[in-house]
């Protein structure tokens, strides 16, 4: 490669930091009184005067913490109790595809599952419950945000599990756990006391991403979260889209407040880590083997893992049925009639939108793959490693709430006279696709035995030849998986597509979220299915391609 050695890493860092930094500045400037939007001063005092600010702030914090702690706990319990067993393989197989199910689709499915007039209630009524009309129970949109916590947890467990498994290869956690077992610790207890701390150090940043995301998510909170008042991020989005344009400065102030909350929460979490570490150490030093809790923890882990997988899958199934449903009233467990009407109505519009979605996602995922491979290769050739600062930069776009920097990015683009359209959308997606691609590829990249390349070098192969003839073919399966992860991330993007596409770039996700604001479950079902299919497609390819290409080389087939 003839590029100067730092070109690709520098480009990658720029793509990760510039949009966030500039976007933040241009979003927050109105809150601080620069470039003030019309309508008068003191957006901060208006923010604090909003009667819902207390509860909304509390909600953001409690739901964010609860969802993160719960997802981490479930993930740890699954790994602690079942790693290496057939049950684990089954859970892993059930949970992995859920990673690509778009958040809004999962949330909508869950809402229909657990509502008092939802699928579970319908299946049990009236024969068991005696209900001919649903009970007036506040289950979805409950004021404590329990439904929201459940929805977030269902989506974050697969992500954390994947991260945990990826980290396993970089630590000696398996060996540590084995030592604990030989010392008489039951499986789950030993793993939690010995293997988990090392693994946690590796997945700390992904956990922070989950925390930041859970606190500032918009679409899931709109569907499952409370509304009297809503979470802070939902309220900010409402202010941004209020006809009273002076509220946009209040929204900017809110975005700043949200950012401060996220940073504060991260600091708190960090403190909690230290406390947990101290408690864990004390427990380990006490020498208790805890055989009783071990069985309970294993059962709990399996039950919760299955609950997560089945709730998302059942939610998707219910949406599939809705997309074919005639009239479907309470308490019927299934619709009166099935029809193709929804698909006939939406099919012709779905096709071009699906194509745009696939095009954007392919471009973003491909660009990310090239950049990430380039970075890793540059790292390998010039022997420099990303320090903690580098890892922080990598996670920056995921740690800063989207609502805090995307509107500013839009203003910035307009200021420079850049037209909205496909490329700005692709580039903005790239900012979010890059971190995930790098996370997915870095492990396998470093896992290749370096002696392979030393051997090739002694045979006279130069760096380029080693890269093209050895590294890339060896990495085929992980490359495809990383592409699929990036692809799924791009498919799920809502705010960047809306804001940087100027509303003119329509993807399955923007359609699905727009439809969610209405209430047509049939149309929502059809779009949610199409969206999920689009995100799953490359995963299927990532599994199938290496099997086809390396039919006679078992070790090359990957996952």
């Amino acid at each position, binding site marked *: 490669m003839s590029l100067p050695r730092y070109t690709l890493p520098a480009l990658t860092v720029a793509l990760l930091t510039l949009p966030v930094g500039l976007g933040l500045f241009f979003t927050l400037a109105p809150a601080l009184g620069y470039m003030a939007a019309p309508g008068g001063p003191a957006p901060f005092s208006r923010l604090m005067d909003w009667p819902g600010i207390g509860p909304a702030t509390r909600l953001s914090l409690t739901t964010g913490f609860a969802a993160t702690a719960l997802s981490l706990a479930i993930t740890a319990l699954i790994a602690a109790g079942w790693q290496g067993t057939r049950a684990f393989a089954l859970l892993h197989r059930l949970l992995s595809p859920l990673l690509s199910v778009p958040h809004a689709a999962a949330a909508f499915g869950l809402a229909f599952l657990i509502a008092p007039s939802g699928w579970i209630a319908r299946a049990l009524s009236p024969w068991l419950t005696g209900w001919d009309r649903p009970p007036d129970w*506040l289950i979805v949109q409950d004021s404590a945000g329990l439904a929201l916590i459940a929805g977030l947890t269902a989506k974050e467990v697969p992500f954390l599990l994947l991260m945990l498994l990826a980290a396993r290869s970089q630590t000696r956690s398996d060996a540590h756990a084995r030592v604990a077992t030989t010392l008489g610790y039951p499986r789950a207890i030993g793993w939690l006391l010995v293997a988990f701390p090392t693994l946690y150090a590796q997945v700390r940043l992904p956990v922070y991403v989950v925390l930041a995301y859970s606190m500032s998510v918009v679409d899931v909170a709109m569907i499952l979260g409370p509304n009297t008042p809503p979470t802070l991020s939902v309220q900010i989005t409402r202010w941004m889209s209020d006809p009273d344009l002076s509220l946009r400065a209040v929204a900017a102030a809110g975005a700043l407040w949200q950012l401060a909350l996220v940073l504060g929460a991260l600091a708190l979490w960090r403190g909690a880590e230290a406390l947990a570490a101290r408690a864990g150490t004390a427990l380990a030093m006490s020498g208790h083997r805890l055989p009783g809790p071990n069985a309970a923890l294993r059962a709990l882990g399996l039950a919760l893992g299955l609950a997560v997988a089945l709730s998302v899958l059942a939610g998707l199934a219910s949406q599939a049925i809705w997309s074919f449903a005639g009239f479907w009233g309470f308490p019927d467990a299934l619709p009166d009639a099935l029809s193709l009407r929804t698909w006939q109505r939406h099919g012709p519009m779905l096709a071009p939108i699906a194509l745009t979605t696939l095009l954007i996602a392919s471009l973003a995922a491909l660009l990310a793959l090239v950049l990430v491979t380039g970075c890793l290769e540059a790292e390998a050739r010039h022997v420099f490693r990303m320090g903690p600062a580098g890892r922080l930069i990598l996670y920056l776009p995921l740690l800063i709430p989207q609502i805090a920097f995307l509107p500013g990015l839009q203003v910035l683009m307009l200021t420079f006279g850049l037209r909205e359209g496909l490329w700005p959308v692709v580039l903005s997606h790239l900012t979010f696709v890059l971190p995930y691609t790098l996370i997915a590829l870095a492990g396998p990249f470093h896992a290749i035995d370096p002696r392979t390349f030393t051997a090739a070098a002694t045979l006279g192969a130069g760096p380029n030849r080693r890269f093209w003839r050895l590294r890339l073919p060896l990495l085929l399966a992980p490359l495809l998986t990383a592409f699929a992860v990036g692809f799924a991330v791009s498919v799920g993007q809502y705010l960047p597509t809306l804001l940087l596409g100027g509303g003119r770039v329509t993807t399955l996700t923007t359609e699905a979220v727009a439809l969610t604001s209405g209430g047509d479950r049939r149309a929502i079902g059809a779009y949610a299915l199409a969206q999920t299919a689009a995100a799953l497609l490359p995963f299927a390819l990532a599994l199938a391609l290496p099997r086809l290409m390396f039919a006679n080389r078992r070790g090359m087939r990957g996952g």
Partner: protein
Amino acid sequence: MTNTATLSLALTLALTTPALAGPDPESLADGLQTDEWQAVLEAAEGQTVYWNAWGGSTTTNAFIDWVASRVKEDYGVTLEHVKLSDTADAVSRVLSEQQAGQNEGGAVDMIWINGPNFASMKGQDLLFGPFAEALPNWQYVDVENKDVQTDFTLPVEGYEAPWAMAQVVFIYDEARVPEPPKSMPALLDWAKANPRRFTFPQPPDFLGSTFLKQALIDLNGDDPALSKPVEEADYEAATAALWTFIEDLTPNLWRQGRAYPQTGPRQLQLIADGEVDIAISFSPGEASTAIANNELPPTARTYVLDGGTLGNASFVAIPYNSSAKSGAMVVADFLMSPEAQARAQDPAVLGYGTVLSMDKLPEESRATFDALDLGPATLSPAELGTAQPEPHPSWTTRLTEEWVKKHGVTE
């Protein structure tokens, strides 16, 4: 794309001196002559119009899709529906463009707009016009009996073109509610007798705010103060009855008022789910359309209050920096055509009220309207009665703010 004559001059002016002078009002406000409309048509051919309209309703989306195919066929105009989850997204988009100095070639060519959004855009000089009363199909519009020249008491002055009439009706399930309550006090009594079987979309959703306004008007009778800005009225006295009513109603609402549906369509879904029995709607034909689409039980019906209900018109407006003003005008004109209006009124399609006057239409167009089957749940024009005018927009804002303060953030 060569455009000629005065209109091109008007458009050029509109593009270059937007917020200050607007387009040349002389050439448009006096009504377009036939040859000038010809120039609009020529300029429009080949243009792409990005119509920003709420995308939450499947039926509306399908209707807009049909409009797109028709204007392509007749005028060579490509119409793209930008599906918004909130109309204000498009308003803020135009505002961002104005702040960034992008005074031409904007991303929004046409907006489906109403009330507060219109007031906001007109107040910020974000609209192109006047154009509406110069469109050829304006001749059929019922300006005498339908409130199409004011939008929430604000004079329209040709800055937006009407395309549908809306009026408040209440949807109920005949199978569960034999005698629907036809006044707000009766609704309160019904809710006390049937607790947790009624709700309304959460303000500031427009339908929720509409419920508050409807309750205010029904409880107070015809109050002339409502047509003036709220600052000029004795607000406390005018709204005392309303807040007592809401206070009494809230504990008897669905989920005891601790949660609300966020939009009108979600409220309909609650009827289909058997969670509530009565819902407010701003479209007399919506229930029939929803029955046809399996979204409401076949036993759904509608009624209006004995004292009458609120009504208003839906409009389309053209932003000052629209990149396809001629194309947008052609679409706005087509929306007012007897063909499009009859299709919109068909409950199998949309079930929206027409803005046209039957007396002004040619014989064969009137026959198309007469032949429409309005559907099982749609009231006749006589049953609907004359719509009550919308209060001044400041009432909407004030009522919504106070409701949010009292009931929207209490959990």
